[in-house]
């Protein structure tokens, strides 16, 4: 929170920080050229005293999802702040918060795991998305020369149960595979997996370690 405030200050914004810990407040007040308010930001009176109604944006970054929701909703509904941004722990709460009127909600969990998936390892994976609230993953994988499945038919590759290769894109043309279809390097394979077998299927298709 200190670095966030510092970053905004350096860009020329006027900042008010609300924090409920007294020691942290006095430290922040010494370190930052910001207005620091000691209090619970989910208390409407504290928000009022902080001059919230004139603010352009409110950022709710406490570690508790419920507090961040209340801060954003109070700012918007009771004090007319147009832009409200919240941090959420539970990735599901990104959608929940938007439905409940928060302008933007970020899940650090989701952002970090997406970054790790993209950067670490699996460079052959082109796209991943989940359906049915994460119960099913659909992953597009580019088969490289070294992939263990190259040259084998679907029957031979021992795909884990409850997983499926739904489609192959070969030279830009979609192929709906059958058991006898052989996989080649350069194929773009669309795999449908469940969270419990997702790792095993990707390992099979890329040869990489999880």
């Amino acid at each position, binding site marked *: 929170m200190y670095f966030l405030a510092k970053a905004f200050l350096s860009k020329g914004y006027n900042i008010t920080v609300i924090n409920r810990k007294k020691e942290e407040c006095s430290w922040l007040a010494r370190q930052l050229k910001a207005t620091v308010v000691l209090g619970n930001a989910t*208390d409407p009176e504290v928000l009022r005293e902080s001059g919230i109604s004139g603010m352009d944006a409110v950022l709710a970054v406490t570690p508790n999802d*419920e507090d961040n*929701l209340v801060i954003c*909703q109070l700012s918007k509904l009771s004090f007319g702040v147009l832009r409200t941004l919240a941090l959420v722990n539970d990735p599901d709460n990104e959608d929940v918060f938007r439905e409940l009127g928060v302008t933007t909600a970020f899940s650090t969990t989701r952002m970090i795991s997406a970054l790790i998936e993209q950067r670490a390892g699996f460079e052959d994976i082109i796209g991943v998305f989940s359906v049915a609230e994460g119960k099913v993953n659909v992953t597009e994988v580019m088969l490289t020369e070294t992939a263990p499945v190259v040259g084998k038919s679907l029957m031979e590759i021992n795909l884990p149960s409850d997983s499926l290769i739904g489609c192959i894109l070969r030279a830009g043309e979609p192929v709906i595979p059958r058991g006898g279809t052989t996989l080649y390097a350069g194929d773009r394979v669309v795999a449908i997996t469940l969270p419990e077998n997702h790792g095993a299927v990707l390992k099979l298709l890329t040869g990489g370690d999880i």
Partner: protein
Amino acid sequence: MARTKHSYVIVIGCGRLGSFLANTLSKTGHSVVVIDINPNAFSALAAEAFSGFTVEGDATELAVLKQAKMDKADVVIGATHDENVNIMAAQIARSRFRVHKVLVRIEDPNKESYCKAVGIDYICPTALTAEKMMTALNDIR
């Protein structure tokens, strides 16, 4: 609720208020599910009175609310000590799970107008007690 004999009620929080409600509602024939983040709290449910189910988890987590089958609930009661948890869970019950009746406990009377604005029913013991006390004081005078 008096007329619909078998309501499905979810009580969030198993403290003094939550456990009392859960015991009473269960004894009077309602299907009750109690959610609490601390499994030890469920010891407040009386064996002879309570025949419902318990779910251990954080009621601001969607997966926990699904586990409690909130989509089937007729009534959701927010009775934890953290009014923000109550308010958040109640709004999810309303908007996500289309629960007909949601009721929360809040401590801070300053949040009454906010609860009205987001459309959830609330009871504020602080305001109720203060009101009773003021009346009692006026009677003395």
